[in-house]
């Protein structure tokens, strides 16, 4: 059952982009949409 959402085991996705001290919301609009 391969599908775009089930990413387990997929290859060639590249390295993980780690963000230090990541804020909960990156921009005010993100919080508003989430709310």
């Amino acid at each position, binding site marked *: 059952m391969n599908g775009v959402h089930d990413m*387990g085991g997929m290859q060639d*996705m590249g390295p993980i*982009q*780690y963000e230090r001290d990541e804020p909960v*919301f990156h921009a005010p*609009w*993100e919080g*508003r*949409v989430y709310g």
Partner: protein
Amino acid sequence: MFLLSDYLKGREDHPMNTTINRRGLLAAAATAAGAAATPDIAHADAHDHKEIPSDVALRVKSLESLLVEKGLVDPSALDALVDTFEHKLGPRNGARMVARAWIDPSYKQRLLADGSAALAELGYGSAQGADVLVVENTAQVHNLVVCTLCSCYPWAVLGLPPVWYKSAPYRSRAVIDPRGVLREFGLELPQDVEVRVWDSTAELRYLVLPERPTGSEQLSEEALAALVTRDAMIGVAKVALPQKGARL
């Protein structure tokens, strides 16, 4: 779960943009060859993607005004939700739970037996109604949590997941190459340590109970909680004493 913010963030580093860069290269080559299509391609390359967020910000503002005008949304309710996620829910809650488990063996027993009930003991509900299963790291077993389908995460004790947790590289590779993923986070595990990967679902969220660092025997519950990082509770880091340079 589909999140508009994820979708838009995904767009910013979508492979399409790589394609545009490749097109840019092609455009340079095409210019040299004097091809007719060059102007359009050159425009695509110079296109500034920074306009996407401001566009979204405007759309969100319009949506919010409309919803408020129609009486469907109370802006102070939105403020309260944003405040909750920014200041009340977060890895500090999980850290408190881990520290309690380290100093109180009977709490640890209850935590491993029924995570949701042990969370409730400290006053943490389950924001999404999902159960929480706590898995314990030992010298022989290292646990790693992922959600290969989307971004399932124990919000009540860790807050909202970081972007990398929701990203395609982490979700795809955590199950096929967990040791490689851990190495990228700077965690090299001995070959004789068993790695267990837990794939979260909407009904069941996992949380790692990290190993208590050696040399922390004298520390108070509060001092211990301060050592516990979000990454350690996802399983991509160990808990270290401050002088060893803990990642916060």
